[in-house]
């Protein structure tokens, strides 16, 4: 049924896009200009660049003389703000101008002079040669400094990126009691470095590509060779390549372009703000996608179970971690169905409520003006509005809003007899439970309303119908070829599923995701003080 609707929607969507699709535009002129070679005539080249980049004030073209008796004419092109002033003056300008050994006679052999400049004068570890104006402009815009010189038909690209960036801070979304507190930043290199720092294996691959016609965002596909399934890596890369958009503002864009089921309520691509989470997922065989400008790193494939795992599950001992995980499953069920159950019980199946409880509920509901369903919808709505307002407002104001929400709306509404206290309690539990499983909170918020409507129309049958539908839908989902619910079924290795087994027992990586390297640890025995003494003898 869902598949059918999905198909229908897809079809409609396809038709829409087909109609809007104009015939492909002819190759525009900019493409041609970008392939123009550097002429070697400094003024002409600079003029050309100026034409390309327009009148932006932050693009600096600094012409100067250097070499013996300042006989050589050169120019530096860079974007102010993107380059580090320190690198620019100390490693590029100063050496170039101060060096007097560069004799003008060597200009006859241009390549030699350029090599000398590159090898003996400039103090930078990352210098490349470029031939076209297009490449030159591109690297200039990404923060490099371009060195042009009269008579050279090449440009030197000197890495000098150094813009203001946020330092590594504790992420606000996934705070932990125990565990690493660093989080990714908006800076691409910092993020790759954070991963590299955690996995010192030679097999870590950080494959680069850039997406977005206008933004040209750096995107990096990170995985561990051997651990990740090559098929999944290829799929991820292929999907990234097929993204046809002009802008990537956040990893959320990428997530929406590469997910398997764009019409599903459930996310099929995961994300995290914490390097330890991302590396742990990579060690399970997942592929991480780092995108420039976003502190959130996406991972694929995502399984349903992932929403119920937290990094802290593995940092604390297994017993409490397992209990917490079970609570998280419960919380998800509660947040999805608690209002629905309350409505079903109080409007259809009063006989299922214990007598004294029923009498208490009745006494609380007596005199409230709205039907129970409307009451629930009003409360859910006001909660969602409160939450949204609280998130968007500056922090000090946000607290004021929550006080108004909690006291005025909750308490006053009950004392005024507008809503019943049991309903407020139910919605409150629902709201709190939602945050126990943050990954699924979007799906849960919508499902809750669907379940509520089902329950108010069909009672407990409606809830059963809803659960059945959701289960069927979940079972039909796939993320990058991996069934969404796979490690909740018993043909999968269950060491880390409903409960978390001790670390030493989790010897296998998740069967459905992993590539060749399937084992985490080989021994699979509990640690004991004795083995410390005996191990050197056993493994000479």
């Amino acid at each position, binding site marked *: 049924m869902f598949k*059918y*609707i999905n198909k*229908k929607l897809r*079809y409609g969507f396809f038709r829409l896009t087909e109609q809007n699709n104009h015939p492909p535009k002819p190759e525009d002129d900019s493409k041609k200009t970008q392939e123009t070679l550097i002429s070697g005539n400094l003024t002409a080249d600079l003029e050309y660049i100026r034409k390309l980049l327009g009148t932006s004030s932050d693009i600096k073209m600094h012409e100067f003389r250097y070499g013996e008796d300042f006989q050589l004419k050169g120019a530096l092109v860079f974007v102010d703000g993107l380059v580090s002033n320190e690198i620019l003056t100390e490693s590029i300008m100063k050496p170039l101008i101060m060096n007097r050994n560069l004799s003008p006679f060597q200009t006859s052999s241009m390549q030699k002079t350029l090599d000398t400049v590159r090898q003996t004068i400039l103090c930078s570890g990352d210098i490349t040669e470029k031939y076209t104006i297009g490449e030159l402009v591109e690297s200039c815009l990404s923060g490099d400094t371009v060195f042009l010189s009269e008579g050279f038909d090449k440009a030197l690209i000197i890495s000098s990126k150094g813009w203001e960036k946020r330092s590594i801070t504790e992420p606000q979304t996934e705070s932990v009691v125990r565990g690493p507190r660093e989080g990714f930043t908006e800076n691409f290199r910092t993020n790759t470095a954070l991963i590299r720092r955690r996995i010192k294996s030679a097999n870590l691959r950080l494959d680069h590509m850039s997406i977005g016609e206008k933004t040209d965002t750096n995107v990096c596909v990170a995985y561990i060779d051997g651990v990740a399934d090559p098929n999944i890596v290829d799929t991820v890369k292929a999907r990234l390549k097929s993204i046809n958009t002009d802008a990537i503002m956040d990893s959320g864009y990428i997530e929406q372009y590469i997910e398997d089921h764009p019409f599903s309520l459930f996310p099929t691509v995961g994300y995290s703000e914490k390097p330890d989470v991302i590396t742990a997922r990579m060690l399970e065989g997942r592929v991480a996608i780092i995108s420039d400008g976003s502190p959130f790193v996406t991972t694929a494939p995502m399984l349903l179970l992932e929403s119920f795992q937290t990094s802290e599950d593995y940092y604390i001992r297994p017993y409490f971690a397992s209990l917490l995980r079970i609570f998280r499953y419960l919380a998800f069920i509660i947040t999805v169905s608690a209002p629905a159950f309350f409505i079903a019980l*109080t*409007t*259809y199946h*009063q*006989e299922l409520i214990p*007598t*004294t409880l*029923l*009498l*208490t*509920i*009745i*006494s*609380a*509901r*007596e*005199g*409230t003006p709205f*039907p*129970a369903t409307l009451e629930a919808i009003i409360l859910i709505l006001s909660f969602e509005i409160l939450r949204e307002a609280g998130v968007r407002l500056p922090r000090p104001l946000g607290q004021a809003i929550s006080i108004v929400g909690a006291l005025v709306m909750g308490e006053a509404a009950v004392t*005024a*007899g507008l809503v*019943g*206290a049991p309903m407020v309690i139910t919605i409150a539990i629902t709201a709190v439970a939602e945050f126990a499983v943050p990954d699924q909170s979007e799906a849960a918020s919508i499902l809750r309303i669907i379940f509520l409507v089902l329950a*108010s*129309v*069909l*009672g407990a049958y409606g809830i059963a119908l809803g659960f059945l539908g959701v289960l069927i839908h979940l079972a039909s989902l796939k993320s990058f070829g991996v069934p969404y619910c796979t490690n909740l079924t018993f043909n999968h290795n269950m060491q880390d599923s409903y409960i978390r087994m001790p670390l030493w027992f989790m010897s296998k990586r998740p069967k459905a995701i992993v590539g060749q390297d399937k084992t985490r640890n080989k021994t699979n025995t509990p640690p004991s003080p004795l083995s410390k003494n005996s191990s050197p003898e056993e493994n000479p």
Partner: protein
Amino acid sequence: MLNKFKKFLFLLMVFILVFTASGCYDIRELDSLYIVTGMAMDKAEQPGLIEVSVQIAKPGALGSGGGGDKKGGGGEEKATIIIDSVKRNVIEALEALRHDSSRTLFMHHNQVLIFGREQAEAGILPYLDASMRDQETRLEVMVLVADEKAKDVLNTEIKAEKYSAVGIRRMVDNKRSISKFFGIDLLTLVSKLTEETTSPLLPIIKIVEEEDLTRLSLTGMAVFKKDKMIGKITEYQLRGYSWVMGELKSGYLPVKLKQGSSVMYVKSSKNKLNTIFKPDGKPIMSMEIEGVFSVGELMGFEEMDTKQIVDELKKGAEQAIRKEIMSCFKSVQSMKADIYGFGDYINKHHPKKWKTLKPQWEELFPSLELDLKIKVEIKDTGKILQSPQMEIGRLS
């Protein structure tokens, strides 16, 4: 393509219709219900009619929550309403009540079904059908017999309980620690009634008028013959009944001896029933009763050591049990009511003999003999072995 789109639309319509057309047909908002907590049936003054009274939890007067505008204050309002109607049939009466009130009667949570004494003596079977048949009523509803008029029982308040019907049910549950036969639900009653020779028992609830308050009390059991009440047995006699049924699992047994007195707790009991036939074909019911006790209290017994005391207590307990059993047995024999289901037992174990016994069972039962073998075991004596009284006696 268009066809497929039509199909999709059709599906959508089906969905919408399923939800709009079928939904909500049995929706019941809580504030449109009268929760019935108790039901009483009395014989009406006019012959052939029945007076059905129901106790309803009064929504406005409940608890502290909700839109209670007059909270606290002095005058405690009654939390229940009693409404009644006199009609030929039960459902007829209930429907009349339904139509006369602002809300629908909600029978699911009915706790007790109380028959007035007069009605119990006239026969209750015709009026059980409605409660059995109706989807809303439960078979777990407790059935009781009022000592006088059932409606008055429902009308009597129980201290500390808001709804007297709920209170009555809790009283019954409490009394079950003495004997589980205090709580007879509708299903058990009807299954007893279907056994040919067995007489059902129902607990009697009585209004006790004291100086400053009237309260309810469960006193003994009503003995039925078929569906008509013919007499009663006391609580003491009920224990005798429970011993025979092997159902006395808790409670206490007072033992009085020459040397002193004691109260012993029943820990468990068993009964192995058997039938022995005399040469003339008359049956004797033989029983092997095993009771396990612990000492709850000792008084007296000075100058005796523990072993002697235990021996004496065993003898005393045996006699006390025998007395309880015989008291009950004699009493029901005189009523010719086979409350134990001996007839049914013989039917099940000796069906051939039962065929000859069945016609004369009415006459046989009053002269039936019991062969009692009682075994008493005292498992522990509590925290102390001998009472302080005895220790002091020894020292002086």
